């Protein structure tokens, strides 16, 4: 079980469910530390008073705010005094349909788990699960954690109550200034585009996607540890817009219907990343491969075959 970040209760009418909040996201990134180049000792960040030039302990730090050029100092206790009074409770204010909430509003995902093992708590937790699952509803409420109040959405996910912090409406920018434009597509053009989307459609299955960045970073660390030098590949060049949209659509559809790749006919090489292409070039004994870009590798490999 992950560590509880908050404990309190979820309040639903007059029913209170004691709950604990745990994060639903795991941080799997490789974290780097700042090191002093000379002695490879880990750097420590320390707080110093800019006036006295001496180190300051955390207890002597307060919050400063620049109000029109005038500095206002606020203490932890004063900040706590403006938190809503029932700060240990998430009051459900309303239930809405999940489909009505645009994902832009979602921020960080958490789970709410029952706090303690008393029968009453477990039963109240399951009651809320049962009532919300059937109606496919999302509960909206507020959560105060550390020094911030969040609007939160609570819903059922995989047999548990999932909680997501949400952005407030004024934290989501207007789309009005975004440049869009473009001619309304003709019926035939739109039909072809929809046919491509249809051909390339698949079920959403998150397990099919792996974090290639994380894997590559691991390989870079491993190679570096063995004393190898690692160079960044040349980025793929940006394609120019097709002069004839209809022709590009038609060619894509022809490729797809011939069982080929949507982007480049039947050429599967284009789909591979440079590292894999480089491995193949090594096997094929392509000369000058280490200096080649991805496109050049594809060209060299397809000429050789």
């Amino acid at each position, binding site marked *: 079980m992950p560590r509880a970040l908050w404990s309190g209760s979820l309040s639903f*009418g*007059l*029913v209170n469910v004691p709950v604990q909040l745990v994060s*639903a*996201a795991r941080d799997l990134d490789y974290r*780097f*530390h700042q*090191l*002093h180049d000379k002695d*490879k*000792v*880990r*750097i420590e960040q320390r707080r110093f008073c*800019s006036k006295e030039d001496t180190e300051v302990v955390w207890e002597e*730090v*307060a*919050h400063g705010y620049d*109000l029109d050029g005038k500095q206002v*100092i*606020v203490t932890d206790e004063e900040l706590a*005094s*403006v938190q809503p009074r029932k700060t240990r409770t998430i009051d459900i204010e309303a239930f809405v349909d*999940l489909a*009505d*909430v645009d*994902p832009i509003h*979602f921020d960080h995902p958490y789970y709410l788990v029952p706090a303690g*093992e008393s029968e*009453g708590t*477990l039963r109240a937790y399951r*009651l809320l699960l*049962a009532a919300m699952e*059937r*109606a496919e509803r999302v509960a*909206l409420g507020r959560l105060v954690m550390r020094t911030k109040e969040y609007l939160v959405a609570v819903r059922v996910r*995989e047999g548990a109550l999932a909680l997501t912090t949400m952005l*407030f409406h004024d934290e*989501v*920018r207007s*789309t009005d200034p*975004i440049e*869009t434009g473009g001619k309304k*597509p003709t019926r035939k053009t739109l039909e072809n585009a929809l046919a491509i*989307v249809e051909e*390339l459609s698949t*079920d959403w299955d998150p397990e099919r996607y792996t974090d290639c960045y994380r894997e590559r970073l691991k390989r*870079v*660390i491993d190679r570096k*540890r063995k004393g190898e030098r690692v160079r960044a590949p040349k*980025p*793929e060049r940006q*394609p*120019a*817009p*097709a002069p004839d949209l209809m022709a590009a*659509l038609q*060619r*894509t559809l022809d490729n797809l219907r011939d069982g080929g790749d*949507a982007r480049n006919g039947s050429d599967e090489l284009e789909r591979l990343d440079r590292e894999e292409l480089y491995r193949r070039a090594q096997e094929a004994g392509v000369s000058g491969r280490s200096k080649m*870009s991805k496109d050049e590798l594809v060209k060299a490999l397809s000429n050789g075959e």
Partner: protein
Amino acid sequence: MPRSIWNGTITFGMVNVPIKLYSATESKTVHFHEVHVKDGARIEHRRICPREEREVPYEQIVRGYEVAPDEYVVLEKEEIKAAAGDRGKVVHLDEFVEAADIDPVFYDKTYYVGSREDPDPYRLLHDALRRSDRAGIGRFTFHDREYLVAVRALDGVMALHTLRFHDEVMAGEDLEPDASGRDPSRREVQMAEQLVESLHEHFDPRRYEDTYRAAVEDLIERKAAGEEIDLLEQEEPEQGDDLAAALEASLGGRKTKARS
């Protein structure tokens, strides 16, 4: 006009859509800086080498990954770049999925997608996504890091969401739910469903203001005016032990309110 943060190309099939990306969100949390309580002076964060007990200038700092206690592999900027891959400024939408099938826990950051140079393919992709209720899935490289992304159509504009990977999201069973004890009775579930129904409304984000942000802003104003701040006690809610009675009272309470 907001500043774009990325210029590139989205492709689907052989159609290339030149685009710009814009931040779709901005935090409005009141941000404080750290000050020394004694003299009100700003706190500085200094980088100290604990062995030499002195400040280290930024140029003498390198990034290291700890492979064993106190054993680091130092990576140069160029080497970290190598992990970003070679996709550069192109997002290939190789697959499309039902947009509503993507569970909200996967959504991370959102950007708005704007058109650049030739807006016709932009409009075409938007209309195709909107008509099909699909989202295009691809990979996006930003600041030397590669992300999994979903591109969706909003009303007239497209949005690009970075997505969490499946192993970065905890599954319900990872929580080891306690299956002991009695389940709620049918009557209790029915009453709870009634309560859910009575509180049902259409989602309107404008109805929810950040009251805490407003309270902090008000606190700052009062402090600036030299006011003494009352430090309030916080109260804990009481846990009712009779579930059915609590539900009944909740429903009853609402009915009375609705009539008056």
